[in-house]
């Protein structure tokens, strides 16, 4: 019983970490119509920012001139730092990409994730390279000594943070600012014609969305306690997308539901595959899991394009 309960808590912690990233993506795609194919890149930036800012000194390899780690900031500053770093990177990238056509934006953001991945692998003085960054302090772990208590406390914190992000986004997408985002999404020429600076709104939504992905990454790093470049592979971008599409893009509640449903599907299919497929064919087993998520993505687009919940037609509570 306690086993199942602790698994459920572990599962929900992951759901709420992903939910934050899905909410960020939803602001970019669901509300503004911006394609971000590099979600995992910003997630990794946040995770590494957390690791570098709060983590202990990493072993220095013989050929390294310096090693940045060992700053040892507290968790809260790590979170703020992670948000700040991913927002700053998104801002610089956004300055270039905000004018681009949709498919070019998709390709460019896809490339950004690849470059970030290369940096995490190769820039060892900053990221500890393929060995991985270990010993990231886990907040609440010293107060709540047993793993179970720690998980419960972390889940409570995750609910609070995810809830706050959800509440904040619900507020801003229903504000005049949020309505301009939708106007830009539907017809940017019309939005410009009524005096809205479409590029500025796109850039703002892009930066906020990426900052949330960074926040999710930071919370992931602080929960697991160690990260490596191979934790942040392109498949994570697809998972987060599928969560948004399945839940219903343009709806924040859909983003939460999508995270729950798709992560549930992913973990349960993983459990099933590991039961059925012999250990020798582990790679093939993993492939089955990915094929499943690809089919869910394509199937949703074909048969239920609005997702489980879909967008609400109303943009303001003052409209009937």
């Amino acid at each position: 019983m306690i086993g199942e309960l602790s698994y459920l808590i572990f599962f929900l912690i992951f759901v709420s970490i992903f939910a934050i990233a899905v909410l960020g993506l939803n602001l970019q795609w669901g509300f503004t119509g911006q394609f971000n194919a590099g979600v995992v890149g910003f997630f990794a930036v946040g995770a590494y920012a957390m690791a570098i800012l709060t983590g202990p000194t990493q072993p220095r390899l013989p050929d390294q001139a310096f090693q940045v780690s060992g700053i040892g900031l507290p968790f809260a500053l790590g979170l703020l730092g992670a948000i700040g770093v991913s927002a700053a990177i998104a801002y610089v990238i956004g300055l270039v990409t905000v004018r681009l056509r949709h498919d070019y934006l998709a390709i460019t953001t896809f490339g950004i994730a690849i470059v970030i991945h290369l940096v995490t692998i190769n820039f060892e003085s900053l990221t500890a390279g393929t060995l991985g960054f270990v010993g990231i302090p886990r907040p609440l772990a010293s107060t709540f000594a047993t793993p179970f208590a720690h998980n419960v406390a972390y889940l409570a914190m995750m609910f609070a943070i995810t809830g706050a992000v959800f509440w904040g986004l619900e507020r801003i997408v229903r504000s005049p600012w949020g309505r301009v985002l939708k106007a830009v999404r539907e017809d940017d020429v019309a939005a410009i014609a009524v005096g809205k600076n479409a590029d500025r709104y796109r850039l703002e939504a892009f930066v906020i969305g990426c900052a949330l992905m960074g926040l999710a990454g930071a919370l992931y790093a602080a929960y697991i306690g160690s990260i490596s470049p191979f934790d942040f592979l392109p498949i994570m971008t697809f998972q987060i997308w599928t969560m948004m599409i399945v839940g219903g893009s343009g709806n924040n509640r859909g983003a939460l539901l999508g995270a729950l449903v798709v992560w549930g599907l992913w973990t349960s299919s993983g459990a099933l595959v590991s039961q059925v497929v012999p250990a020798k064919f582990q790679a093939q087993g993993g492939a089955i899991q990915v094929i499943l998520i690809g089919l869910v993505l394509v199937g949703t687009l074909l048969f239920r394009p609005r997702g489980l919940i879909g967008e609400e037609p109303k943009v303001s509570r003052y409209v009937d």
Partner: protein
Amino acid sequence: MFGQALADGILTGAILSLGAIGITLCLTILRFANFAHSELMTWGAYFAFTFTSLGLMGSPLGPLTFGWGFLLATLIAGALTACLALVVDRTVFRRLRNKNATRLTLIFASFGVALVLRHVVVLIFGPQVEYYSRELQMAVLLLPGVRVMPDQFFVLGLTVALVVLLQLFLTHTRLGLAMRATAESPMLAQVSGIEVTHVIAWTWVVAGLLAAAGGVFFGLTVQMRPEMGFNLLLAVFAASIIGGSGSLFGAVLGGLIVGLSENLATLVVPTSYKQAVPFLLLVVILYFRPQGLIAAKT
């Protein structure tokens, strides 16, 4: 060093061109960025591998590692890849087109398709690296310091031949003309009596054939693995966009630019960052010319 990087760059560029042409066709005629295109390259390579591992390799022709059998396997692989492209279009992209889905929905769907195609390769062939032939090949000293494999020469020649053939097809046949007309304006093409669905089907066939050729050539001169196409995707996209996503020779030029800069860059930056080069090139070019280097004629 420089000469070798130049030679390697031209070869890489030729293979990228074959992929970039397909991406360009997709962008202009089907009007969406197909992220699953490079998976067709992977499938082409593995289709040919299926036949070569069944013994269809032929006795080596001269200094090459393969014989007529391999060329036949490549041809069959091309046909099968074209069929695969058509099947994917029927099951996914055509349905979405009929529902008037936006091009972004099509991009999303192409990501999903790419995931499925890539991992079916893992499922069937396993994750390990494969080669068509394990025979060692002696490199030919072309110039002092520049070594090229006979296979690479062959690949380059065949690529040039394929591009010339395609150009003749596009300019001298009714179907080629119809494809160019559809690229320009699907509506006008339709009122002029062009069957657009027909054109779309042939676009997939051409894109599939060239992708398969590119995939087989990559497998022949480098190696095969299920992620080979995925790893080429960014470079192929960069080639297509740098070339202006509108013209055949633009795509070829883009392929060469990307191939050369990737290989020449290794002279100054660590090889481990090689994959970032096409991306940086792409960003710089898009920043100054959002329509690509050679904008399509209007």
